[in-house]
């Protein structure tokens, strides 16, 4: 599974957003609480550290993928 698909799977599980509804260049999160939920899930799923405010609510799906890659996230 690709990193992109794994992230979509996590977002679906944690935020109830279907993978096909996630747009590459649209904000991934609705608000800061969704971003916190996502960041905690990414840290657990990929075994990486993500600092406060490194992933923000207005980051797009593609931007989040780039940040995760820069942290060494891999499937």
């Amino acid at each position, binding site marked *: 599974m690709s990193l992109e698909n794994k992230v979509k799977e996590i977002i679906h599980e*944690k*935020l*109830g*957003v*279907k993978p096909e509804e996630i747009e590459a260049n649209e904000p991934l999160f*609705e608000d*800061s*609480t*969704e971003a*916190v*939920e996502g960041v*905690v899930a990414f*840290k*657990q799923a990929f075994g990486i550290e993500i600092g406060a405010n490194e992933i923000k609510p207005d980051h797009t799906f593609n931007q989040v993928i780039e940040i995760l890659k820069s942290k060494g996230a891999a499937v």
Partner: protein
Amino acid sequence: MNKIAITGIGIVSPSGIDKRTFWANIKSGHSAVEKITRFDASKYESHVAGHVHELDAYSNVSSRLLKKIDVFSHMALVATELAIADAKIAMESENLNRAGIFMGNAIGGWLYGETELRDLYIEGREGVSPFMASAWFPAAPQGQVSIRYGIKGYSKTVVADRASSLMAIAYGARTLNRGKNDFIIAGGMEAPVTPYALLCCNTAGIMTKNNDQAEKAYRPFDKNRDGCAIAEGAGIVILEGPERAAKRGARVYANIIGFGTTTDGVDRIHPAADGKELARAIHIAIENAKLKPEDIDYVCLDGDGTPLGDKTETLAIKEVFNGCSDKLICSAPKSIYGNMLGASGAMDVITTVLAMRYGVVPPTINLENPDPECDLNYCANKAQEKEIRNALVINRGRGGINCALVLQKN
């Protein structure tokens, strides 16, 4: 008080979500109380309850929002949508600065709360969802309804145990009397069929232990009663002034015309043994309605099914209706679907306005062996046809809360 019209109703209950199904089940007295199977409740002293089925079939709430809210907010959103549609209110053409929300519940959203607390102790701080803070608290349904429709007017959530939503509806009516809002969405919601909430209800000492016969467990005013079966659900009504209702050609189910509330000041759980303060609340409500006791045709009782609760409620009725109580017909229709705790007042109001509309008194079920100390006409086991012009709804809560609301047919 000046009369306030009820122009829409929304029901999410163990006896049905659609109002026709609900009324058919209430009229027939078909019990909706079942053994709890959603989780292993077998070790709880009381493990029967009324469950809501088919909520998802009626829900337009997104899967994204469902991740952030407790089921008590979900039920409130569904019931609100049904009530607004029933009242035929076009929200997009309303001044939402003058729309309000008055909600009541007793225990909040514990399914969300207890799940996250478990994660806190097992996984640590990061195991807790950030949605927890906004999901569990009693005003969460009010907030979700306001967000859903963009409502910005004067609003309030009432927490008064089993009297919560009756009080919320009454305060909503009073707010309309003061001209603060154009219309109000009022009612209650409760989701107590969860491991921790059920435990709390068990320790309150008001629940039946008759687990072997779930459908017969809740038997208000019966000699062999031993408490209530709890239930989950939501009941919502639309309140508006009669002039506004007439102007837009709204169907008026009934009008709220009086309210009274008192407190016993005796015990943290049990009601006062003499029923005097409940009687005073009823007197205040009837006077507030500018009626006399003999004008009341039907009483929708609190009927908690405890030995003391039912006895003292009977005492209060007899004191108020001194000399005419033998002509009075009363019932506790919540015996059919279970005691919805903080939402029970809203459900009682809805059941009563349907009773007024159809001229049928809903029954108290499982009343097979009358208690000599409970000797009113409780409409035992079978609905009775009766023209109802004025009705009284009674709700009580722990801590000695007494509430009475008077309804009048339009």
